[in-house]
């Protein structure tokens, strides 16, 4: 994935995609520590119109929890005109998983098999 800090002035290096069922997994190089986000598309009864991710390895100030360097994800619902957000309360689901890379993948499979929305 491109580094957003090295991209041009109108290119932030992000990556957006669509899936019916699926998500994103970020992992360290060993695969021992990973975090995943799983969602289901709105057309399949879920809450996700698209998934986005970015890598901002810009300042080299390390991996602390308040560092400027970071990676980011978003799960977005709606693209500006395609869905109705009702008056009152509405809800939108995703699933977050932390484990080894192998196990995060397995839990995403579990969620799919369970029909999680």
């Amino acid at each position, binding site marked *: 994935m491109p580094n957003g800090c090295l991209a041009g002035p109108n290119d932030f290096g992000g990556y957006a995609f669509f899936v019916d069922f699926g998500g994103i997994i970020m992992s*360290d190089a060993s695969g021992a520590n990973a975090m995943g986000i799983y969602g289901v598309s709105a057309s399949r009864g879920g809450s996700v119109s698209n998934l986005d991710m970015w890598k901002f390895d810009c300042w080299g100030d390390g991996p602390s929890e308040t560092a400027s360097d970071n990676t980011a994800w978003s799960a977005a*619902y709606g693209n500006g005109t395609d869905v109705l957000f009702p008056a009152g309360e*509405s809800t939108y689901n995703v699933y977050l998983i932390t484990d080894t890379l192998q196990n995060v993948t397995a839990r995403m499979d579990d969620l799919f098999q369970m029909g999680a929305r």
Partner: protein
Amino acid sequence: MKFDCSERMRRYLIIVIWFVVVIITIECACGGGSQTPPPPPKSPVPTPTVLRTLYRVVVTGTDRTTTIGPNERSSYPMEAQVYYVPDQGASDRTTLNRVVNSDGSDHADTVTTLSGYSQDMELGFPWSTNSIPGVAQLTESFNSTIRDYALLAPSESLAGYVPQPLPAYGYPRFGNAAEVLLSTTAGGVTVQSNAVAGGSTWRWFWNGTQFLNHGDYGREIQGAFYFGTSQLNPDEAGDFMTMRTLDQSLKHGSPVLRFENQGNTQYTRAIPLNWDPRQYGGDQDHPVIWDSLVLGKDLALNYQNLGPVAQYTTHLVLPSATTRSRTLQVICSPASIVFGRTMRGLRS
């Protein structure tokens, strides 16, 4: 100047929206049989409210004094951010004044008059009742030993000061606390949410590793909403004037409506601030609040007994239906998921 990732993300979303529209157009063209729906009606956008931050500074060593704006907070030692109150008067609001005693040794706050004190400055326009969700009664306190009045946030207590609540209401803040945490653990995961930052998810621990970044209030795990453009952007945690190098008393977190655990589920709700207060005339001393909206989450750990799997449900409350909008959940992780190691690859 360091660049805020969240600002970049929001600018990037404009590109994402364009991309989505193109894809949908192509799919419709290939489908052949579908009819083009009529354009959605324009949806009303509620009007946000410009607020003032009330600060407490210390003048001449013992005179705890409420102030607004940049001049006095820059001139005297800053002690706390105490409340947000409206910047403008209205029929459901009162006027909060700062008054000063005859020798100038003490300042106090009142919505009426105070014997022995005279008008010094207008501080803001708090609500007259608690009918606005999320507000709390302003607590003026008095220390009879040193004869000092001080405005305290509900979460504060100062030795020797006795509360004397005012008939006025504002959004409570947290002094100079950077964190007021609510923690819950299940399935091998511990999460901490922070009331100072709208109750957003602040830390996420698994197997000894903390996964989340909170370098400013555009990170964390939180919800955001867009009324058609990136400028109309209520954010769960707060606004962008929250970089880590800023004095905590100057940062703008969204006020919290709900902040509690029930079983393995954590519930938080916020009244969101606009990401960029400047879009509505705000600035570092004037956050802008979408007081008819609510953003928050139900975070259910150990979902379906799957261990480190959590169901994250974003809750959105809108005053009226809208189509020209989108909502999203933002998650910012540290550059390296494991502290102390260098990220050599990113898999997706």
